[in-house]
């Protein structure tokens, strides 16, 4: 069982690290000072959650590896994050939408985790749910403002929806590892979270005057370790120091 649990926790740990990395790229470059503060704030939440999750993965594995070994020292085919979180920031519309899509999934996920049977994950879920609820609110507000702002912002928001919506299906994907965890009551059933996610997105999109596209060709692959080309560039930054100075501690 611990193999299934390890692999599944690793998926969500990677989601949080990689999204945190992307969001952190805004720090100092945001459209206004308030967002120069809220972007690193969200990155801190996400990377903080990733740390708790990697620490748990290391503990489940029991081979003496650390959070940093998992975060920094794997090849790109070994990362299990969904593709949505690795997509480039592009512009502010893409960034807040990507965050909303992810947070609208993680909020009911962590809520459902409260009643699962793994003590460590239950503990993580209580802290994480408060943080992610803020991400839904903050990014939801921005999606509404941009969608119902000016003609230019509406067009950018619309483009972001077209670009990112195909990546949302992967949030609900269940592989064999996750299925085993769901069966044992360790993990929430991702498919069962779909109505909550859809309701959040519909509600925000209605206010933002955006249409929810039909997903005819969903993009997936991250859970199997098949990533987009941009991901390798991300890793080359993330891993640079650890690769350049093997074995050093910082």
């Amino acid at each position: 069982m611990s193999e299934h649990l390890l692999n599944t926790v690793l998926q969500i740990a990677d989601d949080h690290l990689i999204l945190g990395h992307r969001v952190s790229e805004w720090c100092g470059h945001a459209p206004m000072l308030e967002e120069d503060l809220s972007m690193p704030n969200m990155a801190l939440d996400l990377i903080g959650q990733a740390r708790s999750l990697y620490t748990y993965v290391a503990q489940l594995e029991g081979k003496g590896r650390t959070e940093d070994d998992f975060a920094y020292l794997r090849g790109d085919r070994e990362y299990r994050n969904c593709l949505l979180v690795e997509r480039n920031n592009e512009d502010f519309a893409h960034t807040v939408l990507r965050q909303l899509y992810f947070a609208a999934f993680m909020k009911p996920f962590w809520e459902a985790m409260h009643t699962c049977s793994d003590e460590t994950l239950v503990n993580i879920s209580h802290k994480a749910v408060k943080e992610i609820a803020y991400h839904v609110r903050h990014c939801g507000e921005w999606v509404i403002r941009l969608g119902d702002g000016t003609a230019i912002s509406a067009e950018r928001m619309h483009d972001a929806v077209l670009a990112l919506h195909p990546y949302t299906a992967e949030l609900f994907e269940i592989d064999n590892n996750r299925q085993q965890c769901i069966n044992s009551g360790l993990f929430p059933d991702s498919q069962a979270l779909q109505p909550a996610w859809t309701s959040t997105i519909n509600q925000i999109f209605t206010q933002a005057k955006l249409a929810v596209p039909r997903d005819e060709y969903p993009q997936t692959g991250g859970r199997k370790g098949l990533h987009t080309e941009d991901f390798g560039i991300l890793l080359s930054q993330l891993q640079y120091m650890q690769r350049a100075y093997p074995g050093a501690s910082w």
Partner: protein
Amino acid sequence: MYSQGLIGADSQPVEDQAFLDAFQRRIDAEEKIEPNDPMPMAYRNTLVRMIGQHAHSEIVGMLPEGNWITRAPSLRRKVALLAKVQDEGGHGLYLYSAAETLGVSREQMTEELLSGEAKYSSIFNYPTPTWADIGTIGWLVDGAAIMNQVPLCRCSYGPYARAMIRVCKEESFHQRQGYELVKSLCEGSADQKAMAQDSLNRWWWPSLMMFGPPDTDSQHSDQSMKWKIKRFTNDELRQKFVDATVPQAELIGLSMPDPDLKWNEEKNNGQGGYDFGEIDWDEFWRVVNGHGMMNKDRIAARKKAWEEGAWVRDAAKAYAAKQKQRTAAA
């Protein structure tokens, strides 16, 4: 956009001798001057310039350190760096608010920064090529900033003094965090220690320049001291910084890039202090006047963020206007 209620709300008193004397008596009695109090225009302008420069320094200061967020070598260091850079942004916000109490808007100050009219601390025009620079900036740059800023907690202008109390607490944490980072490099491999020494070599002299020109050349010092905006001169603060920092470097096995550095028993009224070598003021003025390695890149980065973010700010305003109309119509 941010302080419309305040802009132009101040009526400027007639600055006759009686008024100036009365103002000076308040300063001498250590009374705090508050936003609605009458004050000489030159006092107001000095504070707007100082607080504005300080705020801009925090904002531009996010860039050299932000340069390493995505490459931080461990998750622990990454979150510490993110939190630190976020703190700097918070200080900027806080200081812009303090400046706004003097009747200047954040937008106006931002435009002055982007046009090159307003200055910010020159130290941020140096590059951060290595990870060690993140530690060195915390240790030396935040350390020098604290030397400058602790006396500002007693500055005669109330909003600035109060803002500085919080800022100093956070800067002091950053300074210790930076020193701890450099210390751990010194305890690491030969490569790591060399990285720390190289970084110290590059940042030491620019850090000493952070205190500004020597007292003999400083344009603003005398009046600012009289108004208790400043409490110590540039050279006094620089000496304090050298005396505090040299033993810290020795403790972790680093050497200062200054062959003339030596202990002098006579200094500081017989308490002892360090003599140090001649600062390259030509370099200082070159960087202040816009010709350091990163001056143009820093402003370009801020301009890019501001210009590329315009559509976002416009959308927020347009949405707010629509909501107002909808509420009125309902």
